[in-house]
């Protein structure tokens, strides 16, 4: 019983600590956030220059992603059934330019960098990092 009480008190403490931390993150002022934004852009610029793994497959991956998106655009999805054909063609044009292919390759990474919520499931990772 005492052990259970202690565990729930620890949980309550952890919850309060998390809440305080989250609020301190929310309190970050505009200047700080803008500075972080710039830092993120600097880091993302490295994607274009520092990619070393799988670089030879990158164009193929980009084309594959574009192809999937193209199919989605042409066939439509639940939210875009009334999409006009010219708009689709224009989207395709944008998608198939070289720059966009590069952007598509990095899309997932960009989204992650933007993510504010924590991820729950984490795999084993390398020890020799940093």
């Amino acid at each position, binding site marked *: 019983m005492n052990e259970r009480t202690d565990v729930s*008190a*620890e949980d309550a*403490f*952890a919850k*309060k*600590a*998390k809440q*305080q*931390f989250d*609020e*301190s*993150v*929310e*309190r*970050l*002022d*505009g*200047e*700080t*956030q803008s*500075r*972080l934004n710039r*830092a*993120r852009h*600097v*880091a*993302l610029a*490295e*994607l274009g*220059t*520092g*990619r*070393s*793994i*799988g670089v030879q497959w990158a164009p193929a991956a980009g084309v594959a992603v574009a192809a999937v998106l193209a199919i989605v655009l042409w066939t439509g999805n639940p939210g875009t059934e009334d999409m006009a054909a010219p708009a689709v063609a224009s989207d395709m044009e944008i998608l198939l330019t070289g720059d966009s292919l590069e952007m598509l390759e*990095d899309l*997932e*990474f960009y989204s*992650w*960098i*933007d*993510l*504010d919520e*924590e*991820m*729950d*499931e*984490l*795999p*084993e*990772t*390398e*020890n020799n*990092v*940093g």
Partner: protein
Amino acid sequence: MEKRALRIAEINTRDRDEAFDLVQDAMIKLAKNYAAKPAEAWTPLFYRILRNRIRDWQRRQMVRNKVMVWLSRGSEENDYDPVATAPDPAGRTPDENLESHEAMQGLEDALEELPGRQREAFMLRIFEGLDVAGTAAVMGCSEGSVKTHYSRAVHSLRATLGEHWQ
């Protein structure tokens, strides 16, 4: 993501500018070397890089502080002020903000007193929300060690912060 990382680095360094540099450095390293890794590996990888950067920084600071003490120079020019001046986006009153800020400041002070591994385990589990396996991956230790460090951290913090935090 980077906002949380900044706060975590800031709590460890007690210096926002230094925290910025460390976070940016970690983001660059991640983007440069690990962007091709599976997406689910990015968070633990990022925090492992950041953790290593923070530890390197702390080691350098220790050396610098020793030199500074030896040279008898104080730290009068410390103008660190974590109170945000911009309007509160969550719409809290200044009093509520102050109360919350003071509570967080108390927690940060208490965290500073913890042994490094306990502090890391607590911050990764609570602030970043990593699970035990993810925390173990970042810290480079077993899941059992994470549980021990975390439990000791919570115990010490509760004892330090006392009734204000109950």
